[in-house]
């Protein structure tokens, strides 16, 4: 168990997020993990500008080996952080998007009992494996690993990965409670096939890095919260900083980016039911850049449907900024 040992790999710095455009990272699309020489694929860089507090929190979570619990307004970059950190460290990313029907065991593995039953009934026509034995005789043929299971198996084989558990509060209350043992010890065993035991091992630098995002819809159990490092991602409304973030995405014009950031700051100062968030700003600015809108035209907030999603907010903005001049048609 590695809970009480510190991971001594060098901490992440901001420069790591601005490396090459494309890297070769292990492919996580396959259902299984090969013990050595895994197939790789090209992964594009994730544009992300972390601030210092966030970097400290990420480094702290990696050093202590605890999951990083991220909270923040929708659209502030909780999910994309996991992609950015995985790219910066050159590690494969396992994503798990939690649904309300999710069970904790599915995160580790799923066992297909029904197919095994069918194959067992087929007799001579049953599918056979390479050695000529029917596949239904070996339960490990019907075990499919889940994201956290694959990460632990990869650590078992000596490679590190990043795991993202997205929107953990969507699931039942039992979901985080069922994960406590596995998160503590980072090992699991397939109940239907006792020979399959995997453990992340004793090396702290092999521990999978976990990111858990939380939408604050439901309260999480304290036993789960205790094991996490917590960080709340605030949106920094400073126009200079937002301009930097927009330049990382597809916005080429600096003046347009700065003006869009200022308009966002003014919009957020109004009394809106849902304030526009960072991801909406990025979408809006990207569209403005593609449409070659001049920065001076942004005072009327054109294409405001990308920023404001409620009828009351549109009315408030109309009374503050006037009716929008853009109709959404492409300019010639």
């Amino acid at each position, binding site marked *: 168990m590695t809970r009480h040992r*510190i991971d001594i790999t060098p901490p992440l710095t901001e420069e790591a997020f601005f490396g090459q455009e494309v890297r070769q990272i292990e492919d996580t699309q396959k259902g299984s993990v090969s013990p050595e020489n895994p197939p790789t694929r090209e992964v594009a860089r994730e544009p992300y500008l972390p601030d210092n507090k966030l970097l400290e929190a990420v480094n702290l979570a990696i*050093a202590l080996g605890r999951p990083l619990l991220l909270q923040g307004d929708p659209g502030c970059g909780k999910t994309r952080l996991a992609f950015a950190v995985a790219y910066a460290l050159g590690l494969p990313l396992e994503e798990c998007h939690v649904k309300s029907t999710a069970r904790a065991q599915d995160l580790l593995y799923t066992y297909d009992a029904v197919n095994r039953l069918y194959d067992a009934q087929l007799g001579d026509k049953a599918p056979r494996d390479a050695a000529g034995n029917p596949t239904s005789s070996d339960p490990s043929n019907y075990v499919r690993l889940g994201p956290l299971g694959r990460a632990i198996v990869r650590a078992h084989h000596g490679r590190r990965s990043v795991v993202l558990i997205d929107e953990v509060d969507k699931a039942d209350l039992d979901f985080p409670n069922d994960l406590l043992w596995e998160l503590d010890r980072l090992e699991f065993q397939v109940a239907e096939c006792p020979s399959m035991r995997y453990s992340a091992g004793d090396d702290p*630098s092999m521990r999978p890095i976990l990111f858990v995002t939380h939408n604050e819809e439901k*309260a999480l159990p304290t036993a789960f919260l205790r094991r996490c*490092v*917590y960080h709340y991602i605030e949106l920094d409304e400073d126009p200079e900083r937002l301009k930097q973030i927009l330049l990382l995405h597809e916005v080429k014009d600096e003046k347009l980016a700065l003006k869009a950031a200022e308009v966002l700051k003014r919009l957020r100062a109004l009394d809106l039911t849902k304030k526009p968030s960072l991801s909406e700003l990025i979408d809006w600015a990207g569209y403005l850049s593609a449409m070659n809108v001049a920065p001076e035209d942004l005072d009327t907030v054109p294409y405001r449907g990308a920023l404001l999603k409620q009828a009351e907010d549109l009315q408030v903005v109309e009374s503050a900024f006037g009716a929008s001049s853009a109709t959404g048609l492409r300019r010639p």
Partner: protein
Amino acid sequence: MSDAPPREFFLWRLFCLVRGHGCALGVDDYEAMRLALRAGFGWASPTALRNLCGALWAKSRQERAIVEALFDELGVEHWTLPDVERRTIEVASPASTKAPSSVRAVELPRTAPTVRETPKKGGGLPSVPFGGLAGGASGMLLLPQYPLRYREVAQACRRLRRTFRDGPRTELDVDATIEARCRRGVAGPPVLVPRRRNAARLLVLVDREGSMAPFHPFLNDVCDAIQRSAGLARVSLFYFRNCPTSGADDVVLDALSDDLEPLLDPILPLIAPHDEGTIFEDRQMLQPRPLATVLEEEAVSGSVLLITDAGAARGRYDVTRLLETVAFMKRLRALDARHAWLNPVPRERWSGTTAGHIARYAPMFPLDRWGMRNAIDALRGARVRLERPV
């Protein structure tokens, strides 16, 4: 060094203070803090240490504000390391996974770090001699501590379940599959059934204004907790003033004796069900809805939870109010709705008031942890011993 006894480490003091303010922390969390300090986090400045405490010990924005406020109160101004000596420690390279070394090559201080806590200028008062704690200048940290907490409400309301299967068929029904297989004689597709869902509905009626005004912050908290955490199919929240119904027929009261505190028992069978009245959707009581409509929509075969002091706050007994309440209870019974009453005033103050009388007719409990559980049990159908059930 003077002969004074060694002061305890200020982070331990902070840890105890944070625990005292309601954050659920254990020794493991303090160990994690020490581990993080050994790993080199939090040494750059007092702000970095403050952020480290917030990241490790707080699990929500509110807790983070508490931790940071307590840290500021400690008044740590200089967080410096004296001469440090570098110890060469073999660093385990990532390639050799067998290397057992786990200590990070960090500068370890030879002596304990000095923390100079500058005492604030207190305007001529003598300095208080406990532990050199600098006086907090940031004002008081006030936190509400209600008799009933969020978590207790959540745990109680979670027991209100009425499960039924509805929605897309996603779960395997093993018995039905086996039975279908045996019937057909050949392998067939598995039989799926929809997931269980909680169909329990709760209508919460809260007394507002007047004698309930002191309890507003407490009740706001409790209502928010019920709405956010109950996990029920539907929670509807309405507000009323004094009594949900009004205008019940009080001719029957003429048959009562002339006592100062008459019991309604003799005329109980004569009281007709009554559901006319106005309740409000919002806390400011500006959006009225007729009670009869709301009951038809929400309370039929459902559960109704009433939170009211029923006269116990002012210690009054009002026969008309009791009559209205009994008429309302009869109407609820006609709609096949279970109801339970919660009273923020403690039980000792109910006797001689309307609340004491209502408690004889209907399950009424004080608004604390056990009262909430008992009320939810009553809504689940548990038998409650009443002196004179309606």
